[in-house]
């Protein structure tokens, strides 16, 4: 089982290395979306500081949704997914590995880039640290839920729209507690409660989303 996981992640990373434009796209989208806000809202530092966590989190969610729609589509189309599902007991490994490679390719770059955007919005160092910590816990949740949505809408004609309708509501708690952690730190409070809830959310989705994703994949290929 762990063998399947490693084989799949290694393959997806190699494929991503061969298609760099597809990899850069969500990060480019994130960058553009976040940098447009100061232009639209105005250069008031106080306002920018206030909206920064929300803007970063919403952009992260949209970037994740943008890139997750095609998570299983190519493997479904060329028959690879069937071959993966034929491995006994591999369904959960497939779901986990796909979410993992999605996170490595979109979530992790956002975590790394977040401090730069924090500076762009004139956030304080502790606030930036809490933004990054929240993203570390929250972006895997987005990848796991996005994977579930991709599996549920696999093979549907207007799958992308449906995916966003199904998955975005499920992502709302991650946004609330992720952005809430930064707000708490900025107003001098402890963000530990927010981190705990994000952590709990991550554990909850990491356990349940792959099971649901596996079942959805099975139905989609039947």
């Amino acid at each position, binding site marked *: 089982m762990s063998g399947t996981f490693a*084989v799949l992640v290694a393959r997806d990373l190699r494929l991503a290395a061969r298609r760099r434009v597809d990899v850069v796209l969500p990060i480019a989208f994130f960058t553009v979306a976040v940098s447009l806000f100061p232009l639209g809202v105005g250069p008031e530092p106080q306002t920018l500081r206030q909206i920064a966590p929300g803007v970063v989190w919403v952009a992260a969610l949209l970037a994740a949704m943008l890139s997750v729609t095609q998570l299983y589509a190519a493997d479904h189309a060329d028959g690879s997914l*069937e071959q993966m599902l*034929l491995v006994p007991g591999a369904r959960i490994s497939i779901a986990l590995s796909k979410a993992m490679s999605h996170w490595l390719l979109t979530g992790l770059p956002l975590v790394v880039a977040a401090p730069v955007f924090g500076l762009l919005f004139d956030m304080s160092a502790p606030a930036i640290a809490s933004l990054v910590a929240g993203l570390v816990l929250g972006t895997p949740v987005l990848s796991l839920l996005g994977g579930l949505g991709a599996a549920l809408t696999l093979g549907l004609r207007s799958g992308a729209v449906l995916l966003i309708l199904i998955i975005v509501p499920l992502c709302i708690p991650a946004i609330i507690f992720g952005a809430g952690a930064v707000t708490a730190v900025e107003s001098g409070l402890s963000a530990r409660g927010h981190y705990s809830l994000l952590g709990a959310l991550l554990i909850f989705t990491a356990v349940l989303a792959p099971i649901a994703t596996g079942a959805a994949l099975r139905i989609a290929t039947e």
Partner: protein
Amino acid sequence: MAGDPAANPNPPADAVLTVRELECRRGDRVLFAPISFAVGAGSIVWIRGANGQGKTTLLRTLAGLSAPAAGDLAWTGAPEIAPRPLYLAHANALKEDLTVSESLRFLLLLSGQRVDGLDLDRALERFGMASRKDAFVRTLSQGQRRRVALARLAAQRELLPWLLDEPFDALDAAGVELLAGVIAQHARRGGAVVLTSHLPLPIDEPAPAIVELHAPAFA
């Protein structure tokens, strides 16, 4: 050619796969009249039927990708190989952006086989693709892709049962002959093969048993 396995209600003692009164559905439609057959070790079963009669669905059901609508099927034989036949679908399961040897290695690793470069070379050599092993799959023709997908058969070490969906598709005359040789060799070693083909099978020894799919009596 041969014996009609459907006529024999008692499966042979060395049966690898036993199918009883199996029915497959696609949506609400029952695809074919219930069929029963057994596949013995070292035998080749050729599933025949008109287009849309359910040959692919039957193979997918045998592979475990779909659930049968009625009846049952049982993989017997050595327990460690029984639950996972090697299924080659119509789609080649190759990635455009991987090279030939990377694709083949991935498929073998996925099915739990340890792979070394020599095995890969030998398998590709067998299907005449050794010279293209570092080429990207996207640069190959349909027939060449088919050959790469089929090279998996030659790279298999264990004696798994094979389920092949139209394996002769897109192959040229030399390729057809080659594949027929590989399939016959597998059967002679004691491996079971279930395949579909709309062309006459160029395999004489062992003679393939024919399972004909008929439309259901009342549809």
